[in-house]
């Protein structure tokens, strides 16, 4: 695991942390605080797993943004999936979705009441399910950002090749760049550095962020998910802040190319078109979603089964939106740790193991 372990070296981490401390001290002299938002759930998870917050100086704050596609899935989407399960349709889903609360229940609850819900590691497992059960309808829950979209929509390509008519997608895909725009436009969000996602960037390419950085002049670094990648990314953002610069830097060049993955992007373009999308806790962000094109309606579960994934009432006490926009920290939410816990989550931030509140609950209390 050379290309994994080499990025977790203890002494190198200490070295970089030392540099971070010096930079933070410099910022302190300038009376400034670094507020870095990571917009990727995998970054949130890694930061929590390695205890990175604990080794950062006090004036370097890491804020978890809405980069968790599970977190930002509307309650109505879950309700729709549960409804399909209760109608006898076989639901195939990534494990992350199983315990997300809809308006009142989770898919795990639906399974407990007799619904057929299969957890898949890969979307292709759903295709195998459809092959083995020609008399049943299979619906794959297509949630995710640009990284996951191409694997999920490959289901359609496979299904067409094999003439499978019993499989479809219930989609709730989301795009990162429009969300970044919305965050930068939001006056309540006070962020002076972005840690950009590793694998979303691998798909869309480093250049996809150029106009964003040019327009809003916020230092931004594309960083891998290993702890050393993250520490180096934080160091770069501090250097930029201290030096009054605002540039886009790609520190994950071992995977992310300037133009991204052409084949994946073409596949996305072929099957999907931009659409408005509702982000749980934030609201609708125009053009931040992807919907199946008309000619693929046969594979669109919402059309096939006449079911809507919009609407739905989240709990009015839920402050996930403020957490996702970095306005409050998880422990500043009145429900955190008492009413809302990983075992009985109110909102999505506590459900997904990478959700800001779940990670905080597990690792930082």
């Amino acid at each position, binding site marked *: *695991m*050379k*290309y*994994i372990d*080499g*990025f977790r*070296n*203890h*002494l*190198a981490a*200490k*070295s*970089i942390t*030392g540099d971070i401390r010096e930079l933070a001290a410099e910022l302190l002299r300038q009376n400034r605080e670094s507020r870095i938002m990571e917009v*990727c*759930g*995998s970054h949130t998870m890694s930061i929590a797993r390695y205890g990175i917050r604990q080794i950062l100086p006090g004036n370097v704050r890491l804020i978890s943004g809405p*980069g*968790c*596609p599970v977190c930002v899935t509307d309650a109505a989407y879950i309700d729709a999936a549960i409804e399909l399960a209760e109608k006898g349709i076989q639901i195939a889903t*990534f494990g992350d979705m199983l315990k997300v609360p809809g308006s009142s229940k989770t898919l795990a609850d639906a399974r407990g009441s007799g619904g057929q819900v299969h957890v898949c*590691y*890969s*979307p*292709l*497992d759903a295709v195998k399910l459809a092959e083995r059960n020609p008399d049943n309808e299979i619906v794959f829950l297509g949630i*995710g*950002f640009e*990284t*996951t979209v*191409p*694997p*999920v929509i*490959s289901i359609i*390509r496979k299904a067409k090749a094999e003439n499978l008519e019993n499989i479809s997608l219930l989609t709730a895909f989301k795009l990162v760049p429009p969300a970044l725009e919305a965050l930068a436009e939001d006056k309540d969000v006070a962020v002076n550095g972005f840690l950009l*996602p*590793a*694998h*979303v960037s*691998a*798909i869309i390419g480093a250049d996809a962020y150029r106009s964003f950085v040019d327009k809003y002049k916020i230092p931004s670094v594309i960083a891998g998910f290993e702890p*050393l990648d993250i520490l180096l990314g934080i160091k770069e953002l501090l250097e930029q802040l201290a030096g009054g610069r605002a540039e886009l830097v790609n520190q994950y*060049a*071992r*995977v*992310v*190319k300037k133009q991204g*993955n*052409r*084949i*994946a992007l073409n*596949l996305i373009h072929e099957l999907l078109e931009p659409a408005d999308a509702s982000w749980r806790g934030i609201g609708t962000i125009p053009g931040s979603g992807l919907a199946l094109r008309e000619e693929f309606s046969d594979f669109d579960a919402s059309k096939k089964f006449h079911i809507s994934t919009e609407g739905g009432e989240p709990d009015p006490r839920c402050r996930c939106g403020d957490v996702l926009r970095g306005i409050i920290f998880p422990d500043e939410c009145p429900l955190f740790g008492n009413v809302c816990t990983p075992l009985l989550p109110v909102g999505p931030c506590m459900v997904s193991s*990478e959700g800001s509140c779940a990670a905080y609950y597990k690792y930082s209390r």
Partner: protein
Amino acid sequence: MCLAVPMKIIELKENSSGVCELESIHYDVDLSLIETTKLDDYVIVHAGFAIEKLDIAEANERLRLFAELAETYHDADNT
């Protein structure tokens, strides 16, 4: 979002798929999203799909940098 792991291609099969290896574990991986792959290439695998190649030269360069930082730190610590 996007748990993905670097693996080495050890076998190429038809319909754009292959077998990849991490430690001594072998996985079926869909390679349809990547251009021209060959044996011994490293790819980043997400949900059973290779989503990009790992640039070994860049990766080794980073590893070298980290190894250097580790050594300088170790030396500084011991002086």
